[in-house]
C-alpha cells in the first residue's frame, strides 16, 4: 500500500485531510471516501482485493472494508459487467474495475443492452447506479491491447455517462460524482498520467458536476479541446503558443457524454477557432461529435475549420512505435498555426 493511500485510510474521519496525491491515488481516496459514506458502495474486479489492483487503485480497501464489499472476481469481463447490473438493480452501488480498457469489450452486451437500459426498460422501477472503471490510453510501454482509447464506443450509447478525469483533483471529485450518480457511468482513467503529477486533494467528500466541461486556461485566439492524458500535451502546446503570442483557451471536456456543448460553443464564439486533441483514432472518435457540434452550433462564429489532432486510424502500435501514434505537442502547435493562418 502506498503511503498516502494508507494515511488516507487510517485518517480520523472527522477532519478532512489534504493530501498531495497522484491521479491513481486520488481514485483510491475517492473510493475509500464513498465506501465510508455509503454502505451500499461495493468494489469488484480482477485482482482488486488482495492485490489492490494491477495499478494499485484499490489498495487497502479490502483491509478496511472487508472482503464482502471488496471482491476479487473470476476472470470474466462479461460476468463482471452483468453481475454489476444485477447488484445495482437491488440498490447496491457497485464500482467494477476492468483491468484495462482493452478487456472491457467482452462486457459490451451487458453494458449496452442492460446497464444503459434498465431504467428506461422498467420506466424507473429498477435502475443501475453503477460505475465501470477502466485505465485507458497508451504510452506506458505495455503489451498489445493495453493501450486502447475507445471512449467513442461508449459515448454513442444512450443511457451511459462517460467521464474522464485528467488531474488528481478531477479524478477525486468526478469519481465521487460518478458513484453517487444514480445511472451507469463509464469512468476512464488515463493511465499514462496515473502518476505524472501530484496535486493537493482535500478529502472532503465534495463531488464535481458531471455535466460540465472544465476550462483549464482562458484565452482569446483559439479553443483547444481535449480530455484524458492528451490534456498534458494540450496544456504544453498552449504554453508554447503563448510564447508565440497566441492566446489559447484550454478546455478539458471531462464529461464526454452527455456532452456539455454550451461551454464549448461559448468558448468558440469568443475565439472563433477550435482545435480538438485526442488520442483515439480520428475516424468516428469523440472529436467528430465535438467538431460536428461546433461546426453546426457556431457556424457563423468560426473563422477557420475545426481541426482534429488525433491518433491515426489504425491499431495502436506495439510499444517501440507507440510514440509515433500519440499526438505530440508539435502536432497541436502546428494545427493551431494552420487555423490561425486562415
Amino acid at each position, binding site marked *: 500500500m502506498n503511503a498516502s493511500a494508507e494515511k488516507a485510510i487510517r485518517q480520523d474521519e472527522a477532519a478532512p485531510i489534504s493530501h498531495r496525491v497522484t491521479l491513481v491515488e486520488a481514485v483510491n481516496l475517492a473510493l475509500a471516501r464513498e465506501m465510508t459514506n455509503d454502505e451500499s458502495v*461495493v468494489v469488484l474486479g480482477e485482482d482488486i482485493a488482495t492485490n489492490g489492483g494491477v495499478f494499485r487503485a484499490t489498495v487497502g480497501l479490502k483491509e478496511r472494508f472487508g472482503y*464482502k*464489499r471488496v*471482491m476479487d*472476481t*473470476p476472470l*470474466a469481463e*462479461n*460476468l463482471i*459487467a*452483468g*453481475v*454489476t*447490473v*444485477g*447488484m*445495482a*438493480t*437491488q*440498490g*447496491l452501488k*457497485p464500482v467494477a474495475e476492468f483491468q484495462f480498457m482493452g478487456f472491457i469489450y467482452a462486457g459490451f*452486451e*451487458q453494458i449496452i*443492452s*442492460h446497464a444503459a437500459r*434498465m*431504467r*428506461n*426498460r*422498467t*420506466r*424507473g*422501477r*429498477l*435502475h443501475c447506479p453503477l460505475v465501470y472503471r477502466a485505465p485507458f490510453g497508451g504510452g506506458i510501454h505495455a503489451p498489445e491491447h493495453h493501450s486502447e482509447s475507445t471512449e467513442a464506443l461508449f459515448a454513442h450509447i*444512450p*443511457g451511459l*455517462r462517460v467521464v474522464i478525469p485528467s488531474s488528481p483533483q478531477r479524478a477525486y471529485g468526478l469519481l465521487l460524482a460518478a458513484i453517487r*450518480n*444514480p*445511472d451507469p457511468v463509464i469512468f476512464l482513467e488515463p493511465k499514462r498520467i496515473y502518476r505524472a503529477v501530484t496535486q493537493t486533494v482535500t478529502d472532503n467528500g465534495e463531488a464535481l458536476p458531471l*455535466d460540465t466541461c472544465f476550462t483549464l486556461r482562458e484565452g482569446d485566439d483559439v479553443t483547444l479541446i481535449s480530455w484524458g492524458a492528451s490534456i498534458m500535451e494540450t496544456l504544453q502546446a498552449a504554453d508554447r503558443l503563448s510564447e508565440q503570442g497566441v492566446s489559447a483557451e484550454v478546455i478539458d471536456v471531462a464529461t464526454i457524454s*452527455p*456532452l*456539455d*456543448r*454550451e461551454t464549448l460553443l461559448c468558448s468558440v464564439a469568443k475565439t472563433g477557432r477550435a482545435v480538438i486533441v485526442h488520442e483515439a483514432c480520428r475516424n468516428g472518435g469523440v472529436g467528430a461529435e465535438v467538431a460536428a457540434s461546433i461546426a453546426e452550433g457556431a457556424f457563423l462564429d468560426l473563422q477557420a475549420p475545426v481541426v482534429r489532432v488525433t491518433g491515426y486510424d489504425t491499431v495502436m502500435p506495439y510499444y517501440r512505435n507507440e510514440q509515433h501514434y500519440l499526438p505530440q505537442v508539435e502536432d497541436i502547435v502546428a494545427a493551431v498555426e494552420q487555423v490561425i493562418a486562415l
Partner: protein
Amino acid sequence: MKNRYEFTMDYVRYLDDAGDPLDELPALAADAGRLIDAYRNMVLARTLDQKIIALQRTGKCGTYPSVLGHEVIGTAIGQCMDRHDVFAPYYRDQATQLLRGVPMVNMLLYWGGDERGSAGWELCPQDLPISVPIATQCCHAVGIAAAMRIRDEQRAVVVTLGDGATSKGDFLESVNLAGAWHLPVVFVVANNQWAISTPRGLQTGSETIAQKAISGGLPGHIVDGNDYFAVSEAMEHALDRAHGGKGATVIEAVTYRLGDHTTADDATRYRSADELRSAWDRDGIKRLQSYLHHAGHWDAAREKDLQAHCRDKVEKAVHVYLEKAPEPPAAMVDYLFESLPSSLAGQRERLARKVEGGVS
C-alpha cells in the same frame, strides 16, 4: 498413480404420461389446495397465451413467444419461491410471473410494444423485467444473489433460461461464479428441445443439460418438466439449499415447446408433425388434471368453472390493455437518466411538439 473423480446426476419423474404415480409421491402431494392452485395457474397461463396469440394474429399485439409446454415448470417455480426472493425471467415465464403478481395488463403491454409493461409490479418490485438477449439474465441473477450475500439476507434468486441459452457464456460464467461464491441462486433450464430451429442435439454434445452444473462445481438435477411433482420437489430442495446458505443448484426441466418459437416463426419448416403430436401426449397440464381427477380433487363442473373464470380474467385484462393510449413520444427520453441532461432538452422539446402538432 491414478485418482478418480466421480460425478453423478439423477433424472426424476413421478407421474406417467397419463398422470398416474410411478412412485411414492413427495410430501407436497398431500396438500390438495396447493395442487389445485397449481392447476388453476397453469390453465390461466395457457388461456392468456392463446388470447395473446389471437391478438397478435389480428394485429393487436407484437411478436410473442408462447408459453405452451412451459406452464408446469413456471407454476412450480412460482409456487416454491418466497415473496422476497427475486425472479430473473426469460421470455417464456408467464406462468411464474402470474404467481409473482405481475399484472396481466403489464404482460399485454410489454408484448404490445409498450415499456410500461415492465413498470409498476407492486407485488414483486425487485423482480427483473424479461431479458431478451439470451442468457444475459444469468449474470444479473448471480449479481443479485451476491448482493443478498453481502447484506446477509436469507433470500434467493431464481433465474430461468432455455436449452439454447446454455451454450452462451453468460450462463456458464454465472454457474462458475455461483459455485465460487457459494451464491443463493437456482438456475432453471427449461429444456424444450428447440432453440428456434436448432434442436437440442445440435446445441450441445453433452448427454444432459444439467451436467453443465459440474463445470462450476454445482449440483445438477434433471426432472420431467411436465411433472408437477418432480419440478416442485427439485425447486423446493434447491430453494432450501439457497435459503440455508448451502449454495446454488442447476435444474434441467425437460419439456417440449408445443408452439412455434414465436408468432413470427413457422415450426413446420424444421420439425415433424409426429414429433409434435407425441409431445402433446406428455402435456403436463393434462397430466396434473388427470391426477387431480383420480385423486378426487377435481371434476368436470370445476373444470368448466375454471375455464370460464380464466377466460373472464383474461378478457378483462385485454380490455384494459386495448383501451390504453400509448405513452407520449417524449417518454422515450424521460426515463433514460434520472433527470434529463441539458443536452437532451432540445430533443425532448421536439418530441413534445410532435404530439401537439400531430406530426407523426
